[in-house]
């Protein structure tokens, strides 16, 4: 599904990612964790080319998306992304946010898209907010709309870049619950997160990144109970 080969990214002289080679299979829910500045977000953003890798390759369904011949726009339609700061379109209503992709990119008729949009809003528990503007929503509600907006493109993969980091503590759960529901549908998910409890419960694989490389790659029960590397031990000591 997703494969990286020697993926590297530098910003000037700073090497953020160093030769990351890994593979994610269809239906896997991968939690990407690690200390801040370890390159988690950059790694995720390289997967849909929001950041252009400096070296190495990224394959999505065996297509090399770093090749100039690949239509990145097509690839991205198949990979939803949820951001730390939601990035909803402030001048569009909640429903218009959700149906923007389907109507303008996939060119689905508006009525059909609205039906899909309302269904998705119901799934994230926000049917009653369809007509309001994002500024009227709480952070947790905004993030649930953002998830619905990404899901409206019916992607194969969902990327989450610290989806709960900007939320007030009491709103974290409502977003995690939506994500938990999503994970059970069998969609491939990659989640950069600081929510260790969530990673442990929902993910079926943990990637522990440290200074730009994958320091550990294990199922959550093994990673959280018996981490192999010293860095992972130190990290878990601090966060658990």
């Amino acid at each position: 599904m997703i494969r990286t080969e020697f993926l590297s990214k530098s910003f000037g002289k700073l090497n953020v990612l160093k030769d990351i080679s890994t593979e994610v299979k269809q239906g896997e829910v991968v939690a990407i964790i690690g200390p801040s500045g370890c390159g988690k977000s950059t790694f995720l953003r390289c997967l849909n080319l929001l950041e252009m890798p400096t070296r190495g390759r990224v394959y999505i369904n065996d297509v090399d998306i770093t090749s100039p011949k690949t239509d990145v726009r097509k690839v991205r339609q198949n990979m939803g992304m949820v951001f730390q700061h939601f990035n909803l379109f402030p001048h569009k209503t909640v429903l218009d946010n959700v149906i923007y992709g389907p109507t303008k990119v996939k060119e689905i008729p508006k009525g059909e898209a609205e039906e899909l949009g309302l269904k998705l809003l119901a799934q994230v528990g926000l049917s009653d907010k369809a007509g309001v503007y994002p500024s009227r929503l709480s952070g947790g509600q905004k993030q649930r709309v953002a998830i619905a907006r990404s899901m409206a493109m019916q992607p194969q993969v969902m990327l989450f870049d610290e989806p709960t980091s900007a939320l007030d503590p009491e709103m974290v759960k409502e977003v995690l619950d939506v994500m938990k529901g999503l994970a059970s549908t069998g969609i491939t998910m990659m989640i950069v997160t600081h929510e260790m409890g969530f990673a442990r419960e929902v993910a079926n694989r943990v990637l522990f990144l440290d200074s730009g490389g994958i320091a550990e790659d294990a199922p959550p029960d093994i990673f959280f109970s018996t981490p192999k590397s010293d860095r992972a031990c130190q990290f878990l000591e601090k966060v658990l």
Partner: protein
Amino acid sequence: MEVNLFEAILNSPPGFVQAFAQASMPTLGQTGGINLDFSKIAPDVPYILSGVWETLRFTLTSAIFGFALGTVLAIFKISEIKPLKWFADFYTSIFRGTPLILQIVLIYYATPQLTGFAISAFIAGVITFSLNSAAYTSETIRGGIAAVDRGQREASLTLGVKYPLMMWDIILPQAFKNILPSLVNESIALLKDSSLVSVIGVEELMRRSQIIAGQKFIFFEPYIFVGAVYYVMIMGLTWFAERFERRMRLSD
């Protein structure tokens, strides 16, 4: 009405100087002193006032074309295609680096020489003002685009939205909202500067007051009157803009 530049220059500034001299040195002339008598221009008020329409029509047309062209230039300026960026930067430097009045006379008098076809003073004025205003607004719009949160672009990209659509639907509406006050200021400047096209004979407010001043050989009354008309127009525009801005803010 065709009026050449020479005549226009002859008509106004010396006349003004003369009026000033008469007013400040009452002993020099029998008509000296500030004896404002607006009844002298009363019959000409409708004639001058009908210039309001001409001024507004001129300003509005120039503002619309200037805004559209300014948007295109702003998009050039943020383009990754370097020659487009160079062109837009060069264009802006030319129109900001030379006097507006020079641009007006150059376009009005040089176009027939260049193409063999004369253009009306109104058209020449609109062309000049649109081109000039575009140079200024393009900088404002570029700033407005840069101020839109980066996340908006990223969210559009991840949905697979094409660049032109992203600009049109997502980025520009937010950019325009941010720069609305600056755009209003630009329009006010445009309205005031529109008086400059009097030099090529467009019969807007300024030109009409000059004509009356020249005909009757009185200067204070028509110029003060037309000054008041400009003032009222600009205050009206400012008031309207403030209200509009407040309403826009309410929708946040």
